[in-house]
């Protein structure tokens, strides 16, 4: 029951987020992240907007993903790896 309520609350929050790309700068509002990326992506020095977001503004994300992969490989070793000395033909 509690889980259902939590899911409903989170879902309504995500649905009601402001996804519009319009900027009301005359009202003194700050531009959205979308506008910021599109306007300033030449600062990064990359000619590829996706890479500019992934590797510069969201570099933490990328590092976290790499660390997730590292952790998953760690788990693979712990669960399935086992005998490492199977490297018979020299390593």
């Amino acid at each position, binding site marked *: 029951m509690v889980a259902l309520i939590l899911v409903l609350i989170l879902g309504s929050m995500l649905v009601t987020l402001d996804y519009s790309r319009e900027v009301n700068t005359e009202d003194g509002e700050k531009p959205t992240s979308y506008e910021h990326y599109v306007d300033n992506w030449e600062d990064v020095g990359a000619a*590829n907007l*996706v890479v500019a977001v992934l*590797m510069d503004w969201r570099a933490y994300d990328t590092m976290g993903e790499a660390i997730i992969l590292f952790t998953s490989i760690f788990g693979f070793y712990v669960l399935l790896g086992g005998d490492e000395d199977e490297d018979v033909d020299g390593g």
Partner: protein
Amino acid sequence: MKMSTVVRKSSKIIAPFLFTYGAYLIIYGHLSPGGGFQGGVILAVGVVLLLTSHGYRLVRSTFRERLVKMIESSAALGIVILGLTGLIFNAFFYNYLRGGTIGTLFSGGTIVIFNILVGLKIGTGFTIVFYILLRRMERD
């Protein structure tokens, strides 16, 4: 676990192209569609193609597991070190090598290094996963 001669020969021809293409996607990732993750996966796919056609033992004697593991771990360490060296100049993951005109290889600064490290990490990481799974399969 060996496939027929036709499959072995043709996969031997295709695999170098896959490696070259993966390296291109990684190094030119900030200029053209691509990037570290995509290029790294293609590098891993090249190894997996050889694994399916030539079998586990032959591939593992070429791409040594110890070396693959070493590259994987040092790439993970390199990513963190790259972020930490940015701390000296301004902030974590600060792009301190930025320069040049946009559209050239060196305009990305640390993005190029970051892409290469991530690509190596992803490629070797998936290779290790497939090694472990195949070793498990051969044992059973």
